């Protein structure tokens, strides 16, 4: 656009202010993360300026801290199980929204989105009441059910957006050529939806790993990682928490880069989670 680069001095100074603002906002967004990582190497503890006695000791302490690793494995178990539930019900739900008419369709569409839009406490407590009524003992299983249910909409919206772009002629051809619905689903529909499904799976996985507001009310005796951290925050804090968070952040970054490249290679678009955002908007 010509006028944006027309050397108009007003415009240049305006874009300079916007650039400064952008830098300031990014600084604000990244400051806590930078502090978090830096102080994971800080000898004396989590605070204090300047950082001194840089050390890997906190990582060493972390690696021999059984309770943290137990909670990490619990979180991984929960995240995988929640992912399986959300996909197992979210993908059919997307197909249903795309291809079937049933009473309460509009209500259903809104209902599945609610856990993402409502404060977590409401979903957490409602589920607590359900499990209490059913006399279910709280455990990792109840957390799995909570996450699995709350995150169905992630799978549904991502896959639904994929279905909107899907060329139905391929499925029709498959059916016409004698494949049954089951074969068509696995050999035509799913391969075409590979990207939205992987995207949804990654998103569900990370959201579940981070989730605390719902888990807070559904926890039994075993902790997930965020709840383990929460427990430690109330007892007094050490850079061990910085260290584990730094490691998890590094893993997330690797995942993002992996996802980004996959998506760019496939369709040159980079708005991971954009469908979800668009869906929760309305």
């Amino acid at each position, binding site marked *: *656009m010509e006028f944006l680069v027309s050397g108009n001095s*007003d415009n240049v100074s305006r874009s300079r202010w*916007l*650039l400064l*603002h*952008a830098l300031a*906002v*990014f600084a*604000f*967004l990244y*400051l*806590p993360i930078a*502090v*978090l990582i830096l*102080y994971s190497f800080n000898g004396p503890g989590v*605070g*204090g*300026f300047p950082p001194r006695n840089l050390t890997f000791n906190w990582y060493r302490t972390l690696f021999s801290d059984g309770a943290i690793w137990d909670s990490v494995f619990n979180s991984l178990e929960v995240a995988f199980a929640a992912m399986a539930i959300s996909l197992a019900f979210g993908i*059919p*739900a997307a197909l*249903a929204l795309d*291809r079937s008419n*049933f009473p309460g369709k509009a209500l259903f569409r809104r*209902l*599945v989105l609610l856990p993402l*839009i*409502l404060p977590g*406490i*409401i979903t957490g*407590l*409602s*589920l*607590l*009441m*359900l499990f209490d009524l059913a006399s279910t003992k709280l455990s990792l299983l109840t957390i799995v*059910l909570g996450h699995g*249910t709350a995150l*169905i909409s992630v799978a*549904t919206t991502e896959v639904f957006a994929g279905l909107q772009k899907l060329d139905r002629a391929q*499925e029709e051809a498959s059916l016409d050529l004698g494949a049954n619905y089951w074969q068509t689903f696995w050999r035509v529909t799913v391969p075409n939806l590979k990207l939205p499904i992987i995207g949804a799976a990654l998103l569900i996985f*990370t959201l579940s*790993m*981070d989730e*605390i*507001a719902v888990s*807070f009310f559904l926890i039994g005796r075993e902790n997930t990682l*965020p709840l383990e951290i*929460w427990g430690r*925050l109330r007892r007094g*804090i050490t850079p061990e928490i910085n260290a584990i968070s730094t490691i*998890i*952040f590094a893993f997330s*970054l690797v995942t*993002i880069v992996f996802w980004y490249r996959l998506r760019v290679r496939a369709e040159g678009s*980079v708005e*991971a989670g*954009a469908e979800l*955002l668009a869906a*929760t*908007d309305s």
Partner: protein
Amino acid sequence: MFSRAYRTIVTVPPLAWVAVFLLVPYALMFCYSFWSVSSAQTIVRSWNVANYQELLQKPVYWETLLRSMWIAARVMVFSLLLGYPLAYFLSFYAGKRKDLLYQMVIIPLWVSYLVRAYAWKTILGSDGVLNTLLQYVHLTSHPLDFLLYSPFAVVLTLTHIYTPFTILPIYASLEHIPRNLVEASHDLGATPVQTFWKVIFPLSIPGVVAGATFAFVLSLGDFLAPLLLGGPSGIMISNIVVSLFGAAYNWPLGAAISLCMLVVVVSLLFLSERLEKKWSFS
């Protein structure tokens, strides 16, 4: 082209799951809010409105609700003030770096909510990074104690957490503005400032409304940041609910408060949907 059996198979399981794990729990919360607790600490399932009367009579409840709304409103305004110019910069001035900068807005979301709140705690504490820095450069001789355990800390942390949530929808709506409208406005003699306020801003209102709703609703129901950083003056409505479901053991009253919160939230979502429709471009 899809048979009745196919449509049934993709529709019924997700519908049943969502009914059991979302609809029933939310309905249960509604029921609980009309029940009561006996002196022997058991739930009495007789219908009455005593919980709601108590809410109206005891100022602590609605005062805390109002205070939470005030905190949420500040978070919303600050997130928009930080987020809008950044989204505008990304959409109109970032050029080739657009994709990279967009990803940089998302990356902080991959650091767990709890960990970011914790990082702010290590920054704001009386022997935290900020206070020791200020003393190090001799700006103050005593730690500033309003930084942590105050509504300020809660607003700051929640603003940090929800700013990306406002940037993303605003950016999406700015990206959807046809660039030839902007050029037309310029060609017809409008100054850049006029173009912004008469063309660009009105067309971005749906994104602003969506972002504002996210920030307000999600911070309204937050209970972890206030517990971690708020101190006694930063208590929010969800903290009362948590204690009613915990030590205070009055689930029905807690459910009634949650339901009030739910009503506030759902009416806001409804309102924002109407506003977005009204202002959407097409």
